[in-house]
C-alpha cells in the first residue's frame, strides 16, 4: 500500500510530470527517514532527556522539581567527583592503550594465511563473551590476599601482597581486567582493517627492498589510520562509560581509589537515589566523550 501511494502512479490523476518531479524531490527524504527516526528515538531523545533531568531534582519516584543550574553548581563544588578523574585517567588511558596495543599486535599476528588462524581468532574473541561477573570473580580469585598469585609468590618464598587493599595498585588490576576482556574486540576491528589492505602493495614494496618495519610504517599504519581512529574512539568512549569490572572486583574501593566518574554517577542514581544530580554527572561525562571523539577525529582523520 505504501509503495502504491508514494509511487509515481499516485500522481497520475494530476500531471504525470509534476508528480514525478515532486516524488523525485521527496523520495530521498523518505529513504533516510527511518534512520533519522531511529537516531531521534534512541540517541537524541535520551540525550535531551539527560539534559532536561540535569535541571531537575529527581528522586527515584520521578516526582521532579525544577532546580535550574543548581545541580551544576553543586557538581562544581563536589571534590569527590573531581577526584574520580584520577583513577579514570589510569583506567581509560591504560585500557585504551592496552586494548589497542595488544589488540593491534594480535591482529598483526593473525593476519597470515596459515592453517588454524580462524580457529585462533575465535579463541581470542572468547574473553569478550565472558560476563563481567565471571571476569570479576576470576580476577578476585587471582588477586585475593589468599589468591592464586599470592600462592605462586609463596611457593617462591616471597611475601604475600595485599593487591586489593592497596590504593595504588587496585586501579591497575581493574584496568588489566578490562584490557583482557576487550582487547579481542579491538583485534577483530583491526583484523578487518588489515584484511582490506591489498597484498600487492606489500609485494611491490618487498620487491623494492623495503624492510618489514618500513612496510609497516609506510603501508600498514597509513592505511589503518581510519580503523585505528575508530577503534580509539570506541574504546575511549566505551571505557569512560564502563564500570562493570570495577563494580565486581573493588566496588570503587578501597577508599574510592577505583571510583571512576561513571561508577560515581551510578551510585548517585541508584544507590543514593538522586537521578537529577546523577544526570548532571552524565552531562559532564557526555561532554568529555564528545571532546575525546572530536580530538581523535581531528588528529587522526585530518
Amino acid at each position: 500500500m505504501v509503495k502504491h501511494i508514494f509511487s509515481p502512479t499516485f500522481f497520475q490523476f494530476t500531471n504525470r510530470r509534476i508528480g514525478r518531479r515532486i516524488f523525485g524531490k521527496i523520495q530521498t527524504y523518505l529513504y533516510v527517514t527511518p534512520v533519522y527516526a531511529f537516531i531521534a528515538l534512541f540517541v537524541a531523545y535520551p540525550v535531551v532527556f539527560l539534559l532536561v533531568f540535569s535541571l531537575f531534582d529527581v528522586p527515584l519516584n520521578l516526582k521532579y522539581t525544577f532546580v535550574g543550574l543548581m545541580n551544576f553548581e553543586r557538581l562544581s563544588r563536589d571534590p569527590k567527583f573531581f577526584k574520580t578523574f584520577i583513577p579514570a585517567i589510569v583506567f581509560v588511558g591504560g585500557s585504551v592503550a592496552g586494548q589497542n596495543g595488544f589488540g593491534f599486535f594480535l591482529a598483526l599476528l593473525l593476519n597470515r594465511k596459515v592453517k588454524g588462524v580462524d580457529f585462533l581468532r575465535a579463541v581470542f574473541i572468547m574473553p569478550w563473551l565472558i560476563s563481567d561477573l565471571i571476569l570479576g570473580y576470576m580476577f578476585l580469585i587471582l588477586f585475593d590476599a589468599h589468591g592464586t598469585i599470592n600462592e605462586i609468590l609463596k611457593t617462591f618464598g616471597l611475601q604475600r601482597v595485599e593487591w586489593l587493599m592497596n590504593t595504588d595498585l587496585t586501579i591497575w588490576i581493574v584496568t588489566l581486567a578490562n584490557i583482557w576482556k576487550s582487547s579481542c574486540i579491538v583485534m577483530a576491528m583491526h583484523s578487518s582493517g588489515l584484511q582490506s589492505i591489498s597484498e600487492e602493495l606489500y609485494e611491490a614494496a618487498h620487491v623494492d627492498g623495503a624492510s618489514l618495519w618500513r612496510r609497516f610504517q609506510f603501508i600498514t599504519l597509513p592505511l589503518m589510520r581510519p580503523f585505528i581512529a575508530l577503534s580509539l574512539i570506541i574504546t575511549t568512549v566505551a571505557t569512560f562509560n564502563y564500570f562493570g569490572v570495577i563494580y565486581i572486583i573493588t566496588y570503587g574501593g578501597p577508599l574510592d581509589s577505583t571510583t571512576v566518574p561513571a561508577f560515581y554517577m551510578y551510585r548517585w542514581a541508584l544507590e543514593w537515589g538522586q537521578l537529577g544530580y546523577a544526570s548532571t554527572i552524565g552531562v559532564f561525562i557526555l561532554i568529555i566523550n564528545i571532546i575525546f571523539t572530536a580530538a581523535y577525529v581531528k588528529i587522526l582523520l585530518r
Partner: protein
Amino acid sequence: MKEEKDPPEEGRRDYIKAAGALVAGLAVGGAAGWLSKPAAPGVTLTETQTETVTAAKTPAKGSFVISFPDGYAGHYVHLSQAFEILQIWNPELTPEYIGKTWGEYYEWLLTVFAAGEPPDMPMIDCIWIPKFVELGYLEPLDDYLANWPDWANWIPTFKEGLVWDGHTYGIWGNTDARVWWYWKEFFPDGFPTTHEEMIAEAERLKAEDKPQIATWVGAAIYPFMCIYDAICPEDRLKSPGWGLLEVRDGKLYPIFDDEYGVRTMEYILEMRKAGIEFIDIPGFGASYDKLFEKKVSSLFCGVWLSAQAIGHGYKYGEFETYWGTAPWPPPEGGRVHAGIPGGWVWTIPKEAKMPKDLIWEYIRIHMDKNFIGRLFAKLGFFPTRHDAFDVLIRESEDPFTDDYLSYFENVYIRPEITEWERVSKAIDDAQWAVILEQKTPEQAVQDAASEVATILGW
C-alpha cells in the same frame, strides 16, 4: 512417476493429526494430574492462624505477587505453606513468587515501584525503609498493629527499627546476629573474650605462621560499631541516632567523633598491626571458603555461617567438633553484644493491586510464632518476636542456636534515616583510612563526622 498429493488434503490430515495428539496429550496429562493431586493441603492451623482465617471477608481473586531476595529463597517453602492457608478462604487467589539476586533486587524494586507496578508484598532491606517511605511507596501499618495483640511480643529495639516519621512501615521477616566462627584447633584455649586477648592471639598466630583472624569491614559498618557499641555510654545507644548521631535543632547531628569514636579507631589500628585480616565488600562471598579451607582461623560475619557450613558439606552434628562461636570480644571493661544486625522486612506498598487487608492477613499468617520458629530453625536466621525463640530452639538442629540467641539479647540497630547509605559509607571510609594507615584515628573520625554533617544538611 511419483503421485503428487493434493495440498489441501494433506493440510486436513495435519489438522487431524494435531487434534489427535492434543486429545491424547490432554487425556494422559489429565490422568497424571489426577493421580498426583494431593488429597488435601494438609495444613495444620495454629491458634493465631485460625483467628486470621476466620477473620477473612470477601474472597479475593487473581495473582498475589510476593518478592524477596534470592538469599532468602528458603522463604519460598514457608510462604507457600502460609499461602495455602490464605487460599482456604480465597480459593481463586494464586501466588506469584519473585526472587531476585541480592545485587539486582534493589534496582528491580526501584524500577517497579517507580513504574507504579510494585509487588503486592515486597520484602525489603530494613535500611531501605526511610528511603521508600520518603518516596511515598509504603503504607503505614499503625492501624493494623494497634489491633494485633501479637505485636506486644516483638523485641522493642526491632520495633524501633521499623519506625520512620512516627509511623511503622513493616514487619521484620528475619534478622541475624553477627558472630565469630573459629576453628578450635587454632584456639586451644577458646576464642579470646577481650580485645586485648584477641590482639595477643593474632600476634601468636602471626608468629606461628598460622591462619589469621579475619573480619568483614563495611556492610553494617563493622568492626567500628562492634567496638564503639561496646565502649560507648549505654544511654546513647538508643533510637534514632544509636550512639552515632543525636538530635540537635530538630535534625540529626554526628557525635561519633568524640573520645569513643577515636578510641574505636585506635582499637581497629591495633588489630591491623597485630595481623588481623580485614575483608572488603567484594570479598565477602569468598570469605566463607577461606574459613572452611582454613585459610583464615576465624571469621566474623553473621549467624548464617551455619547454613554456609551445611552448604560446604558439613553436618550439624559435626559443628562442635570443629568450631566454636563467640561474640565480638570487647575491650577490657566494655560490654558484650551482637553488633548491629541486618534483616529483611515485609511491607505493603501503597500501590499494591491486592486489597491491603488481605496482604495484612497474609503477613499475620506467616508471622505466626510457630511458623517462623520452624522456618528459621531451617534457614539459620532469627525471628524478632520473643515468643518464637522457644520454637526455634526446639526445632533447630544447629548446636550454636542457644549461643546465637544469647548474643542476640544485646543488639543495637542502625539509625533508620534516609541518608544512612551515605553516612555508613563515610564511616566505612574512615575505617579503611585507618586500616590502610592513610589517616590517624582522630583525623579519620573527624573527617567522617564532618562529611556526615554535610550529608545530614548541616
